[in-house]
């Protein structure tokens, strides 16, 4: 029989009984034993564990000084020698969810112990922390508290008993970014014919694959003074200087390059390579302007159609690129372009 787990529970000012929104600036404190929802956790754990302490912190305090607040809380709970930390559940409360995720992550890194939290799928804390922290799926409101507690304690039990974790749908947690192949009971051919037959008969079936939920992209407002605007060129067609000095990968790229166009009127084949595993690159190698149209842009500068071509172009290879990587590239490039006063981008893809 495993020893009794020492659990420390994290709550915000509201669940910790300090007060409402007006108390959101309260700094971290720790109390012995369980408070509020912690009592339900204690009950659910029974003899398996004991809520030895509860750390409470205001959502605004945490949100404004995240790393410092986390360190302060860790210092407060360290003397209680926790085996595991449970945070929340935060349901739909955004600041609270982010704080729960952050404290769990910090506790894992700095105390080397496991941490579990719970929140609703739309809580921003999910997207930020789901790969680092075990996050139970909860409903959107306090009405689902019992279910949330049950799920969190179930996860804690599995983590500490050494039992194999089930799939996210079985153990009610958000997927943690681990993607693996497993053997089904039948071949893909048998499964796809069977799935079609069920669909044709109007019988229930479960798709093995879903469509991605892309966040809507709000277009920027139109450029009103194009004849004085700075326009940049960005591509995912894999154009790199000869020798690919930044070693950008031809698929599953993890970086992008930035290359000077200063003094360059047209791109010469001898100066560039095309490193991209998803299309026939011969035509671009022959004349790189086909992908990154420097020659046409220079003409537009001369004709005063645009103000200026931006002095660098950005490039990566868009082959099997992880979507989160593409988002990172886009955000980084956009930040630089905005800082440089660029108003528009021509983005070429292959």
């Amino acid at each position: 029989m495993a020893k009794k787990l020492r659990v420390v529970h994290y709550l915000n000012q509201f669940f910790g009984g300090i007060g409402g929104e007006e108390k959101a600036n309260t700094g971290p404190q720790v109390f012995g034993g369980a408070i509020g929802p912690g009592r339900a956790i204690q009950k659910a754990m029974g003899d398996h564990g004991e809520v030895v302490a509860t750390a409470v912190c205001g959502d605004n305090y945490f949100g404004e000084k995240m790393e410092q607040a986390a360190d302060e809380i860790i210092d407060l709970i360290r003397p209680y020698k926790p085996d595991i930390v449970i945070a929340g559940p935060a349901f739909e409360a955004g600041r609270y969810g982010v704080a729960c995720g952050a404290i769990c992550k910090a506790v894992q890194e700095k105390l080397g112990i496991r941490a579990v939290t719970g929140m609703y799928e739309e809580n921003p804390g999910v997207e930020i922390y789901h790969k680092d922290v075990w996050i139970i799926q909860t409903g959107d409101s306090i009405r689902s508290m019992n279910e949330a507690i049950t799920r969190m304690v179930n996860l804690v039990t599995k983590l500490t008993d050494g039992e194999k974790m089930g799939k996210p749908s079985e153990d009610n947690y958000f997927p943690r970014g681990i993607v693996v192949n497993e053997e089904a009971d039948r071949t893909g051919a048998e499964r796809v014919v069977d799935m079609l037959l069920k669909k044709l008969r109007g019988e229930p079936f479960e798709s093995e694959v879903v469509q991605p939920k892309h966040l809507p992209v709000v277009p920027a407002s139109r450029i009103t003074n194009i004849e004085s605007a700075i326009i940049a060129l960005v591509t995912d067609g894999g154009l790199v200087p000869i020798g690919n000095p930044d070693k950008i990968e031809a698929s599953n790229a993890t970086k992008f390059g930035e290359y000077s166009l200063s003094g360059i009127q047209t791109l010469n084949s001898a100066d560039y390579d095309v490193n991209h595993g998803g299309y026939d690159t011969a035509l671009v190698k022959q004349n790189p302007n086909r992908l990154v149209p420097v020659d046409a842009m220079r003409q537009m500068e001369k004709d005063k159609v645009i103000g200026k071509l931006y002095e660098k172009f950005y490039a990566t290879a868009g082959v099997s690129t992880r979507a989160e990587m593409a988002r990172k590239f886009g955000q980084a490039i956009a930040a630089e372009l905005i800082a440089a006063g660029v108003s528009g981008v021509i983005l070429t893809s292959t």
Partner: protein
Amino acid sequence: MRLELNVINIKKVQFTKKTGIDKGMLSINREELQKILEEDTRLGSVDIELAQPGEKCRITRVFDAIEPRARLGNGSVDFPGALGKQGVVGDGKTCVLRGAAVLTSQCFTGAEGQSRRAAGGIVDMWGPGAEVGPYGGTCNVVLLPSPSQGTSLSDYLVAIKIAGLKTAVYLAKAGVDLTPNETEVYDMEPFPLTRRDLPELPRVAYIFQIFSNQQLPLPGDPVFYGDNIDGIVPTIIHPNEVFDGAITTLSIDTYLLQNHPILKELYRNHGKSLYLVGVIITNAPNNGPAIERAATIAANQAKFILRADGVILTKYGGGAPEMTMGATAQKCERLGIRTALAIQHAGLDTAEISLKPSTIFTDTPEVDAIVSLGTNVGGPDLTLPVPERVIGMDSVQLAKELVRQVSQIKGATSLIGNSKLMTVRY
């Protein structure tokens, strides 16, 4: 179109003075076969090795695998267009040497030979590698063709594709006059559109992507009746033409086309829970208007010519071809045809919070039935032990214990569903 496969079971293979088959032993006159293959001026010398199941033997850079098959009858044509003559396939009788395979091991020197495009896969004849793929259990005739001086990689790949097909026919011709061990019959008759007395079962068609325009077609690549189908529009064919040599590709082993798992499964259910009514072959275009065009034509064919109630779709390639797949499936659904797709994932978004792996296309809620065929980065990993013998290039690097994913074993996984692997999120 009724195809009867005369199956002869092969248990062992050897080199002797005369090519023939006796009691499961396939004997091969090596010099005679080499001479035939070396006629192709794109090739220099062609080495041939044999590998039996159970041997601690590893075969590298396996580019294609072909089941030895030859059609019976005077004037019969095999792999029409690919080997020169045109002709009809998919009906009559074809001899099959089951338990044997021709493997072509790519021997192009230099960096090009090691490039992703040409790389090929590994076949192990023993151990964990043999258990996951079909060719660890077949008696293999391995071709090791060298390119002739000045031959480009693209011409070489087409030449070795054809060498494999020629060898498959040469070997199976030794069996055409023998009594088969078993026969398999593939017949879509009685055809439900012409017989009103048949029970009401859903009619199912298969939309089969066999080429992607991400790359230029290789000149001379015998994709469909010997043509490289640059510019193809969706085309209706009989499933037996897929089994019987009308199609070869660069990304799906010929052996798997000859034994197409989805078509075999549809045939298995034919007349019992569905009617298989036809196959539509298509490409995956590389631009929006062409994708829309291909989707429209294929969906119209499925709906108005094949009168399909349901359609299964597979793709050719990684992410980009999923656009064609999604567009085609959506058009089918909007015409009232139910669809089910089978996809092998390329480049999964690991940051996604969805409970299941996802596709690339979106905004097509009607396309709601999708089977996962695994991802080539999701493992599982296999530890392949040290071989006693290595056939093919890179023998020094590969003559040791290797850790490889299942998808790197030739034939273990494919775009057409022969494997049990599926991708899961944790």
